[in-house]
């Protein structure tokens, strides 16, 4: 067992033995499989505590040690088969900082184009494929329809074909600039490896225009299917899916949402600016709490402190991802997205929005900004510049880089020795930033549904909805054939004995 895990495990035992803690969890139950939920019932059959266990990949730091720093954008993009572009870009920006080089302006625009294309594609995937079952199909639909097939049934085959073809078209841009989607070779310290040929520009402009139309169409779908359904809106704003926490997101110099670059801004549960800092200072603002039941750490705001899994201004728990980004910014950076942003806050009762399920709507608002930014960048003459890299001249030492990944703030930090080989590497991935709020959401959903030992059949749907809105990243580990990441809910008594197990 790892030293840290051993330490917290021992602490948990001490607490249990002193009578202060009533829950005992065998370490064997930690983080095995995917989406594993442990629910502990008290003597009355009500929920004492519910946990979502997220698998963590281990040994990354040791794996990186001794490798050339310039290999990191390729290496880190291989961590995850779902969001390689986010890791590649955060890593490339960490190399800029490491080599103390400003990215070439044209190179920056190419990076930003690729990154916005990725955001648009990834968000579209979530809206139609992953979150779609919750809203487009509906939370009460039979489980066999709560998937992409059910979504197609609701929106029609033509829309399904449009989603598939749009995704492919957007990926053409990523493939062209990045060499390939899964292991991109785009990012170099100071710029990019390849420019955009003027001959390709008309095609890319057409793709970006189609992308924008598609994003606006998606907003219309959201209006027609979700917002016109009173029951859905009631669900979004219900207490079961609401937590008043701090929010963090990246903003530009005008405090507008930016996915690629800017300072990190934190707002209070009342929506006031609490902190704004360059990414390199993140350790001054964010610390990590450890719990005995999980290898996953729980980041919190250092200046507020860890007060347990509680919400409000006295608790340092914060959220990232689309809803948090919109809360943390003063607006969107592009006009159509700004209109959608204003409507979003108007309907949901003003800033900040605390309803976890609003992430789905915020995601659609962000799709529009990503597409509009692609159009802007492709209309900028510098995007086809023949020069796109500033050659670094300094010896690397320490560098921090971050982007807003689809599922929240992603931070890479590297330290190198005198030869430029990696000594230390630390990643704070988006789902980790959200881990405390996700834990609270799962706990709240379980407590709301399980009463006096009776497990509501809607438990799985509702608990799934509670954490799926965050778009948590479980995709890094094995493919877990036959194709699904099975969700297992285990109900235990306070002695840890299994009362019931629900699988699907």
């Amino acid at each position: 067992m790892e030293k840290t895990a051993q330490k917290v495990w021992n602490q948990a035992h001490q607490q249990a033995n002193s009578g202060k803690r009533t829950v005992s969890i065998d370490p064997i139950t930690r983080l095995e499989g995917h989406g594993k939920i442990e629910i502990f019932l008290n003597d009355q059959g009500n929920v004492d505590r519910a946990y979502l266990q997220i698998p963590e990949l281990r040994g990354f730091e040791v794996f990186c040690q001794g490798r050339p720093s310039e290999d990191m954008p390729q290496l880190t993009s291989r961590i995850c088969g779902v969001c390689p572009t986010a890791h590649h870009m955060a890593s490339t920006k960490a190399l800029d900082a490491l080599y103390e080089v400003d990215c070439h302006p044209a190179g920056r625009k190419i990076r930003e184009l690729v990154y916005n294309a990725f955001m648009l594609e990834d968000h579209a995937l979530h809206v139609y494929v992953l979150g779609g079952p919750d809203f487009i199909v509906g939370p009460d639909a039979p489980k066999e329809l709560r998937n992409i097939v059910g979504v197609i049934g609701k929106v029609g085959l033509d829309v399904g074909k449009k989603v598939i073809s749009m995704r492919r078209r957007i990926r053409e841009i990523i493939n062209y600039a990045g060499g390939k989607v899964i292991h991109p070779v785009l990012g170099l310290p100071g710029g990019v490896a390849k420019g955009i040929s003027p001959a390709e520009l008309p095609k890319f402009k057409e793709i970006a225009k189609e992308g924008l139309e598609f994003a606006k169409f998606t907003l219309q779908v959201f209006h027609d299917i979700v917002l016109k359904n009173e029951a859905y809106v009631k669900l979004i704003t219900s207490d079961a899916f609401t937590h008043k926490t701090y929010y963090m997101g990246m903003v530009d110099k005008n405090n507008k949402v930016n996915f690629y670059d800017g300072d990190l801004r934190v707002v209070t549960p009342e929506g006031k600016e609490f902190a704004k800092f360059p990414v390199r200072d993140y350790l001054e603002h964010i610390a990590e709490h450890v719990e005995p039941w999980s290898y996953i750490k729980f980041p919190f705001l250092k200046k507020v402190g860890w007060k347990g899994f509680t919400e409000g201004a006295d608790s340092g728990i914060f959220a990232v991802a689309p809803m948090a980004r919109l809360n943390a910014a003063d607006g969107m950076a592009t006009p159509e997205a700004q209109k959608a942003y204003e409507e979003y806050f108007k309907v949901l009762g003003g800033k900040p929005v605390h309803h976890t399920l609003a992430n789905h709507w915020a995601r659609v608002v962000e799709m529009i900004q990503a597409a509009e930014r692609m159009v802007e960048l492709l209309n900028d003459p510098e995007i086809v510049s023949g020069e796109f890299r500033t050659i670094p001249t300094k010896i690397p030492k320490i560098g921090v880089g971050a982007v807003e990944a689809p599922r929240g703030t992603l931070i890479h930090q590297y330290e190198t020795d005198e030869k430029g080989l990696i000594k230390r590497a630390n990643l704070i991935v988006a789902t980790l930033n959200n881990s405390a709020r996700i834990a609270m959401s799962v706990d709240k959903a379980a407590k709301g549904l399980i009463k006096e030992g009776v497990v509501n059949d809607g438990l799985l749907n509702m608990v799934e909805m509670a954490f799926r809105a965050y778009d948590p990243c479980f995709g890094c580990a094995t493919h877990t054939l036959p194709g699904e990441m099975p969700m297992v809910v285990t109900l235990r008594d306070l002695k840890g004995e299994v009362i019931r197990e629900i699988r699907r």
Partner: protein
Amino acid sequence: MTLQAKTLVLALGNDILGDDGVAFYAARLLRAEFPKSVVVVETGEAGLPLLDHLESYGRALILDAAATGKCPAGTILRWDREDFRRCVAPSQHSAGLPHILELAERLGLAFPTELQVVCMEVSDPTVFRETLTAEAKQALPAMAAAAREILTAWGCRE
């Protein structure tokens, strides 16, 4: 030879997560054995990108690592398309293979009419490393043999 007439071997996994990349090792053995009749693709992608890889081929053999927890590490598991039809549970993050297949069918995409899956059960694919465990190394010939048997039955000779 058209893609429709060709057979695809699609190896899934992550080559920096130890045994999660075992399918790539098996795929490389098969690439050498069937250079003309089989297209071998290795990918770390998940979800909808699998559509791009599978489309237009007549037959596809998918190789992967699995962590069912129901059998010892190194066990070779086989599934076919019918097995996937019974698996409709929603995935928490990425669209799983069953959905990809169902989606392709609903959208009328040109998809493999014959599809088989060969997997190796692995014990811990969550630690970063570029090598296989002893169990996976030992079971690799059996994985390649299971794949070879399917390819041969499909008429792939060289």
